[in-house]
């Protein structure tokens, strides 16, 4: 229906190199998505050019530090801050770092693995 | 230089009827399909609990032993899901909006369905 959707898994170390390839190929950043699958987090970087949709995927644990791509895409700060505020993922080197204050919620890091084992009245 | 382009529209709306309705003094606009509130025909409900399972906001509670059906009108989002999935079609969507209340309460309805007694099959088979 909406054409090809390609998902390529990469290592955390190769992430910046692959994103630079997309930047030189004139792709625009569509979104950065984080999903909690069991004990690990899967992070998807989506790019698009002329309606061709391509993704990079990295799999990290809660204490991995991932590099920020805001050096190449200035607008990535909003996704990386949201990922940090909701999931607790450490991102190194963001161009605009809100230090946890972009998204104010009653429970800190509500979607992280640590919060999902809380019962209704417990606080972290 | 174009100024006062709005004059034509302003005079036209000044001379025509207002577009607003003085609700609730005048009744609200309704169509045949409007979703107002959910009503039940209590003589047909079989207390299967399908409406309770399918409700996305958990507004309906069905009690099989006490034979009651209750709905919290403030939780109901009038999505029509219960009306569509009821197996005996005893729920209907009325076009009138529910009236405002000042305290949170549930509406409790007693179910008056009586299961019809099936005729004895043994006499027919032997006869």
């Amino acid at each position, binding site marked *: *229906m*909406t054409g090809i959707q390609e998902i390529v898994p990469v290592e955390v170390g190769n992430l910046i190199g692959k994103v630079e390839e997309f930047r030189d190929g004139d792709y625009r950043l569509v979104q950065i998505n984080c999903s909690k699958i069991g004990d690990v987090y899967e992070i998807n970087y989506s790019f698009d050019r002329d309606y061709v949709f391509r993704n990079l995927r990295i799999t990290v644990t809660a204490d991995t530090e991932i590099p920020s791509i805001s050096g190449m*895409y200035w607008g990535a700060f909003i996704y990386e801050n949201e990922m940090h505020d909701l999931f607790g993922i450490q991102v190194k080197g963001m161009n605009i770092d809100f230090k946890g204050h972009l998204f104010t919620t009653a429970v800190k890091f509500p979607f992280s693995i640590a919060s999902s084992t809380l019962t209704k009245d417990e606080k972290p | 230089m174009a*100024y006062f382009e709005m004059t034509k529209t302003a005079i036209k709306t000044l001379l025509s009827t207002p577009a607003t309705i003085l609700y609730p003094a005048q009744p609200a606009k309704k169509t045949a399909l409007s979703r107002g509130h959910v009503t039940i025909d209590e003589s047909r409900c079989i207390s299967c609990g399908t409406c309770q399972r399918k409700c996305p906001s958990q507004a309906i509670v069905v009690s099989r032993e006490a034979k009651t059906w209750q709905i919290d009108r403030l939780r109901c989002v009038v999505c*029509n899901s219960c009306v569509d999935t009821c197996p005996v079609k005893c729920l209907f969507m009325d076009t009138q909006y529910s009236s405002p209340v000042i305290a949170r309460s549930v509406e409790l309805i007693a179910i008056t369905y009586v299961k019809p007694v099936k005729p004895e099959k043994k006499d027919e088979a032997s006869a």
Partner: protein
Amino acid sequence: MTKQIIVPFGPQHPVLPEPIHLDLVLEDERVVDAIPSIGYIHRGFEKLVEKREYPEYVYIAERTCGICSFIHGATYCQGIEQIMNLEVPERAQYLRVIWSEYSRMHSHLLWMGLFADSFGFENLFMNAFRIRERILDVMEQTTGGRVIQGSCKIGGVRRDISNEKLDEMHRDLDSIEREIRDLTTVFLQDDSIKHRLRNVGRLSKEDAYHLGASGPTARGSGVAIDLRKTGYGAYGNLNFQLVTDSCGDCYGRCAVRAKELFTSIDLIRQAIQKIPDGPVDIKVTGVPNGEFFARAEQPRGELVHYIKGNGTKFLVRSRIRTPTLTNIPPLVRMLQGCELADVPVIVLSIDPCISCTER
């Protein structure tokens, strides 16, 4: 050496439809920087998807936002149908297009009303809403709800529109088009409005592309991206032209939205003429197992629904990325260097729908 002061903008502001907070760093009435802050309306939709079965989640997905609600429901259904390889009947796809375009028209008219209010033209605001009432009446007559339609389900649509009703809608479009033409003439020709909008909030074409702007925010700067051209649903069988403007200021974005109203009317007329007869839904059995990115064009830009299922009735992940989230970095860039009195006009020109952004 000028002193810098910080002025808070929002979350309560008469011009904002939904709460967002901006800290404006000012030097003598000129904005130097803007720091956004969201979270006032976070409802935890992405957690709720793990507690509701996947057919019931349609009702929740379409209540993400009140202005663009139909397209959220339709995109979620599209994602699940692609994962489960369901073939939606043709008539249902055309009906979804017709409702989507009516939804786009009412959203643009609501935006035009709020925009007129932001620079003080209340008569125009009320007039835009008067025309919007006619479109909401059509939505209520065909689906039962003015704002939340509730007519999409997995495998098709829940309700059909009879052919007589479709002919009546086709005839009514003529008078609606005349009224919209009078309204857009005021927006685009009146000089007092041009004084407020020209050269305010400039965004260049390279900035719009690389910062990730989408929808009329991008098209107002000359970037020609419209997801309807990928041909999802029945859009593959309909012809339309993209509307772009090369100025990149608030006037350009307003002009793009005003001209898109006429594109939508044309699409509805084409869809009503081409709609085939047939069933409007199919029976759905089974559970979704797999993942898919469903993309659609909302009135505000590009909507992405990421859905992942693992073979049970409850989905593992549903992520909604709305166009307003991706339009916030261009907004921060646009606000740098503007005057304080222009801030409400610029914030409203990206069409902020914060309840979608925070889900």
